[in-house]
């Protein structure tokens, strides 16, 4: 299955991706039959978040410290994503917001240095997939569903799966994890957009 080209959200991807094919277009080419392990490029991968702050939006990034990505192009449900973030390195577009985010009233990064996501199922959905799993923030684990799209970098041939980009979007309620500081100023819903560059692990 081939999907129409789709504009990526970030300028880095704009440069890299010319032909955007979803995960399932890659499956259709049938070049790889077994689950493939991929390595995450932590330098180029980013987790962006945004949250409403009165009439404005605070946004920022959170570095990815490690990830395990296994993609089964034949049986999508066998795919697996396991990501660990370092909220202590979070940035924000607004003074005080990064400090507030890292502080004890929100992510308490001194006490909880990791934020993790472990997938439990992956199923096809439209031109992408729905990745469900558990996200753990402040040692509180809650289920989450992320919309996922896979892209192939610019200049690569169709069916070349050595390097891929994954974009995943979703949202969490921060109060569900006890990260409810400054709830009078900052809204509860935190929208997530994860852009990960993965490279197939050498056999």
């Amino acid at each position, binding site marked *: 299955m081939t999907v129409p080209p789709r504009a990526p959200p970030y300028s880095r991807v704009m440069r890299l991706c010319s032909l955007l094919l979803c995960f399932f277009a890659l499956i259709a080419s049938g070049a790889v039959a077994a689950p493939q392990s991929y390595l995450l490029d932590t330098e180029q991968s980013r987790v962006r978040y945004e949250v409403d702050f*009165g*009439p*404005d939006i605070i946004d920022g990034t959170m570095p990815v410290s490690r990830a395990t990505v296994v993609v089964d192009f034949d049986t999508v449900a066998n795919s697996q994503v396991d990501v660990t973030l370092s909220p202590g390195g979070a940035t924000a577009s*607004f003074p005080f917001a990064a*400090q507030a985010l890292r502080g004890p*009233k929100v992510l308490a990064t001194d006490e909880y240095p990791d934020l993790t996501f472990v997938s439990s199922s992956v199923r096809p959905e439209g031109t992408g997939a729905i990745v469900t799993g558990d996200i753990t923030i402040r040692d509180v684990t809650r289920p989450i569903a992320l919309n996922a799209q896979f892209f192939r970098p610019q200049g690569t041939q169709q069916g070349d799966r050595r390097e891929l980009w994954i974009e995943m979007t979703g949202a969490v309620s921060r109060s569900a994890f006890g990260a409810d500081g400054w709830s009078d100023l900052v809204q509860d819903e935190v929208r997530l957009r994860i852009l990960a560059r993965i490279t197939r692990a050498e056999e």
Partner: protein
Amino acid sequence: MQLRNTLNEFGIITRVLHWLIAVGVIAMLALGSYITRMEVGFSNFWLFGLHKSIGLTLFLLVGIRIVWHVISRPPAPLPSAPWKDRLARWVHLGFYALLVLVPLTGWIASAASGLDVVVFDRLTLPQIAPTSETVEEAFFTLHWGLTKLLAALALLHIAGALTRRDGTLRRMILGRATAD
């Protein structure tokens, strides 16, 4: 123009400090009331910094005023009914206590929030309280209550100054109670 206070007159330093603090307190009561009600966003978040900056300035001015009154004692109140004298004395003592406690409780509460307390957009004040929601809430509640008390005392003080016809207000404006 005399700098120091005398037995019957306020010197220029005492008067300038008095009016600077008076204007600052009235402005802060209005600003504090406004920022607790406004919808906070990028465009007005700086008002919290302004509130802290003026608060710190008032705190320092009150400190200077206390030291100055040790160096140069202010004149005794003009004679009036004993109950008025007592009331005026308590109001003044209350003012000094509140002018120290209100900024101090605001500073402690802000520090306990875990965020840097930044004034004048560049100066980070010392972290004078542990990061604790309990401390933060307790001291913001105290700050709010003491501020209401300060507003009540300010009204009482202004009412007293405006109703007394013995030259008390004139003495704080011009230094002496009479034109002589």
